[in-house]
């Protein structure tokens, strides 16, 4: 099992101080929740389907006033009290109960965070049960079926005033110096983790932020679950890529993976390489790439920094999934390529330069100036420029024709002047090669045209040939059909019968007899 460093860059814990007056913490979005409450007043959320009768809560004594001997017992009672769920879509229902639970949760959070020796073994199952009851739920259908995370306001979780405190408690519980993984692992098991992962689909960014930190802690502390967590994240991603194209927590999961990859041991295991090639790279195909592209590019670069030999897989993968119609994504891809080139090893660069610069040339000739511009900016990057210079003999012939043509044709003046700069750079790098290419440009163009004509000629010939052949085939098929339909026709059957009656020894009829 590789070590997982929890680097300083690990997801920051959502900080909440406990001195904040509860009212502010409870509801930062009063208007929105009111609106929702109005909209859906007569129906409560899925969570309450099985809670038939509401339990009346009575306030318990404060934890801090409890004698040490009764502390654990009281803690346990409070945990049980917090297992009662409230309907937040009806904002006026059972206000007293809600307040009691909120106070209890606050106390629990504070107690776990500040006092030592509270977490004893019997409390583990109770705590995990309380957490499970509160956070695990089937996420409701999105109110906006075409929810676009970039454009639309997310639907916020109505029960957040309680939910936040439960998450806070869970986080403090995991981070407590008293926390014992060996005890926790009996309750925080695979099923628990799976449900936790499914919650990442929540539309509420506040919830996902907590989940991210919590999952990171679970991954760090419960070693036995690591492989399982990775596998399930894989499954979530694969479902996202190939089945649903919808999952709200991709960015958060990638952020966790970024720090997990950072901790991978060398040499990389086959499992991890497979993850890179079959999951991370295909994630680039997603329609909603812009939402998690930064995190994804970070993961990809992490992999390269761990092991330079994966470079070729990455570049070839990106080229395979290069966006064809979405220029916005194309710009993102170019950005990622630059990030990759920034850390690429020269030996690896040589392996991918050919297909890569063909693509870059294609981008330069894009009529969308942002794409062309982004590609041309590569020549402003000193490290990339040094790589290009070293391999000028290969790269210049790949891009020359494009640069030459686009410099004359592009509608955007900025692009034209950028191209002139690039051409100038090349001229300075290798003037002999540059002159040769300029001289042969026309000839090459002619050759290309000729090839195109030949191709058209070839296909025309092929198609004529096909037409002739298809005619023959359809004729044959028609005859075939005619023969069989005649066989089935009552008149023919009658004819056969008659002939058999006349001469019972006659042989069974052959198809060729049909010509009679």
């Amino acid at each position, binding site marked *: 099992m590789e070590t997982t460093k929890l680097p300083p860059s690990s997801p920051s814990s959502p900080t909440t101080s406990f001195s904040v007056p509860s009212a502010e913490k409870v509801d930062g979005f009063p208007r929105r929740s009111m609106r929702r409450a109005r909209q859906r007043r007569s129906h409560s959320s899925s969570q309450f389907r099985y809670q038939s009768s509401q339990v009346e809560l009575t306030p318990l004594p404060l934890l801090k006033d409890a004698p040490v001997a009764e502390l654990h017992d009281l803690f346990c009672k409070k945990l049980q009290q917090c297992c009662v769920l409230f309907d937040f879509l009806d904002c006026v229902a059972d206000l007293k109960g809600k307040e009691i639970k909120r106070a209890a949760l606050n106390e629990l959070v504070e107690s776990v965070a500040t006092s030592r020796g509270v977490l004893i073994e019997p409390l583990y199952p109770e705590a995990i049960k309380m957490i499970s009851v509160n956070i695990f739920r*089937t996420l409701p259908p999105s109110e906006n079926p075409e929810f676009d995370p970039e454009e639309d306001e997310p639907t916020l979780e109505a029960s957040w005033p309680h939910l936040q405190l439960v998450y806070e408690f869970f986080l403090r519980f995991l981070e407590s110096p008293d926390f014992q993984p060996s005890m926790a692992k009996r309750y925080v098991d695979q099923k628990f983790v799976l449900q936790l992962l499914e919650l990442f689909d929540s539309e509420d960014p506040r919830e996902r932020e907590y989940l991210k930190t919590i999952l990171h802690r679970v991954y760090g502390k419960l070693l036995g679950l690591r492989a399982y967590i990775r596998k399930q994240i894989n499954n979530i991603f694969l479902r996202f890529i190939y089945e649903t194209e919808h999952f709200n927590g991709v960015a958060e999961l990638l952020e966790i993976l970024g720090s997990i990859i950072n901790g991978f041991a060398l040499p990389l295991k086959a499992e991890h390489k497979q993850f890179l090639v079959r999951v991370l790279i295909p994630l680039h195909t997603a329609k909603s790439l812009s939402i998690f592209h930064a995190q994804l590019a970070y993961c990809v670069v992490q992999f390269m920094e761990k092991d330079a030999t994966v470079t070729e897989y990455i570049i070839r993968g990106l080229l395979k999934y290069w966006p064809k119609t979405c220029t916005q994504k194309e710009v993102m891809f170019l950005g990622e390529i630059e990030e990759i080139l920034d850390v690429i090893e020269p030996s690896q660069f040589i392996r991918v330069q050919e297909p890569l610069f063909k693509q870059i040339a294609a981008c330069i000739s894009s009529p969308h100036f942002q794409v062309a511009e982004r590609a041309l900016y590569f020549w402003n990057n000193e490290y990339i420029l040094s790589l290009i210079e070293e391999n000028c003999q290969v790269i210049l012939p790949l891009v020359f024709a494009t640069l030459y043509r686009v410099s004359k044709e592009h509608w955007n003046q900025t692009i034209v002047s950028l191209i002139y700069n690039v051409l100038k750079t090349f001229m300075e790098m290798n003037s002999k090669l540059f002159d040769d290419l300029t001289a042969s440009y026309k000839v090459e163009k002619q050759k290309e045209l000729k090839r195109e004509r030949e191709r058209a000629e070839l296909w025309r010939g092929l198609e004529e040939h096909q037409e002739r052949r298809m005619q023959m085939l359809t004729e044959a*098929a028609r005859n075939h059909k005619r023969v069989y339909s005649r066989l089935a026709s009552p008149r023919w059957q009658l004819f056969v019968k008659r002939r058999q009656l006349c001469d019972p020894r006659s042989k069974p009829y052959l198809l060729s007899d049909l010509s009679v």
Partner: protein
Amino acid sequence: AAEEGGPCSLSKMAGADGDDSLYPIAVLIDELRNEDVQLRLNSIKKLSTIALALGVERTRTELLPFLTDTIYDEDEVLLALAEQLGNFTMLVGGPEYVHCLLPPLESLATVEETVVRDKAVESLRKISQEHSPVDLEVHFEPLVKRLASGDWFTSRTSACGLFSVCYPRVSSTVKAEIRQHFRTLCSDDTPMVRRAAASKLGEFAKVLELDYVKSDIISLFTALASDEQDSVRLLAVEACVSIATLLPQEDLETLVMPTLRQAAEDKSWRVRYMVADKFSELQKAVGPEITKNDLVPAFQNLLKDCEAEVRAAAANKVKEFCENLPEDNREQIIMTHILPCVKELVSDTNQHVKSALASVIMGLSTILGKDNTIEHLLPLFLAQLKDECPEVRLNIISNLDCVNEVIGIRQLSQSLLPAIVELAEDAKWRVRLAIIEYMPLLAGQLGVEFFDEKLNTLCMAWLIDHVYAIREAATCNLMKLVEKFGAEWAQNTIVPKVLGMANDPNYLHRMTTLFCINALSEACGQEITTKQMLPVVLKMSNDQVANVRFNVAKSLQKIGPVLDSNALQTEVKPVLEKLATDTDMDVKYFAQEAISLLCIFFSIRPNLLCLLNTSQMLYFPNSIYPASMPFCTVCCLQQHRLNWSNK
């Protein structure tokens, strides 16, 4: 030679290549390997052309191995390849060689991209039918096994779709193996594979022997229906329909119903949604007794579900569910169990639920009959006609015909009118468009009097809507109304108003006059067109807006065939000739086009012209042109013939 056509002669024909060597495979393969993806894609799409050029033998020995070896390409190319190979049987030499297609398709069935894989599976399923039973066991079934035990989930998901096509045609030992493989995949570690298996469970059950359905399928079904992932569980609901159909009635209660009940109460709304969505199928599959005892309460719960999605899906099924209830106590069940829930849904908080209900609720009236409809349903219809959401009102209006049959539309007309008026003036143009489309239907049901009194003004108001789509629809609506109510009605009510708009200061409204004339001329007939419409059109040729002028040219072209000969010669022709010299190039263009298309009418002798308004068949009894062709086009095409006969 035709008479020898046996099953093998087709392949012989494809194989009888005179010019095999014409196209060296290297050239063709170069095309398939071209650097440019688009060109590569084009070549793959014409793979059958290449195969034909190569002939069956070389397709088998050279082309297919090449394709199998080089499967690493853009998904788009692979998709095209997967599709092509499904239709390749003849090109490799017919059914006896069809197994040659398996290697490339096997590789395609393991690709990551779902669309490629699905297409490969589709092609494999297709060609499986062309395998002989022996080939199926020797070539096809081993492929299925290899896929089913592949390392990566993709091949295992593909395998799920192939079991059912080979199962019926293999020996019993192989059958046992197939069942074993399917069982393994149903409990696969990867949820993607379990989903694939669950989605094929019903299909597989159908080809299995009944004993195995009971022993194998039921346990798999139960397991999948209680999977930890709701995306798997909901697929089991689909399978439930097929499984229930296969089992004898007496086994349903013990084998299927516990699982179905559990699904209807599932904690995930997606599963409950699926149950609601498949409710009619489920109802038919389990039969009337279980429907009465189990499904009625389950349906009530779904109609009252806490998630709007589920309620909407259930609301959509209300009519079908009621229709399929056992007839002996259908009415009683509807009245005591279903109708109370329906009443609640009418005032649901979610508009999708209400509009789903509105699209089917009218259907209940035929089931419940006149008295119940008036007593119980009518108040609901009326409430929905006043709903705040336009979609709900529209759905009610669009289904008026069901009610019309049972109680007559008069009962509704008082509430109908405000609803229609409000929709007609809705701020959203799509809503206005939708109501316009129902106008001819409404007019037919409400009758001409009611229409003239209440709706005519609306129809005219739409003509000056500020959205073009509405004006266009309004024009078309007028035409349909005239077809319904007749030319005389048009002359009295519509035509004066339409023609009045020709003097409107807004050029868009003036153009609307022209569009209306285009639409109405044929329905109104020669007399009205020549006497009333034509003068207005001709006058508009002096309009100062060029758009109006070229639309005059277009209109003249359109109404030309309807006009009488005299008017054509003396009035239309000079105006068009004048427009053809207009300063605006578009006006010129359309005027010239009109002249060239109408020239036939200008040059025909008057006594022949009287026939022009009758059908094409009458005028050109030996016409070789289809009856659907515009009349004036046919005239032009026939011109030289006519000239000839005039001599």
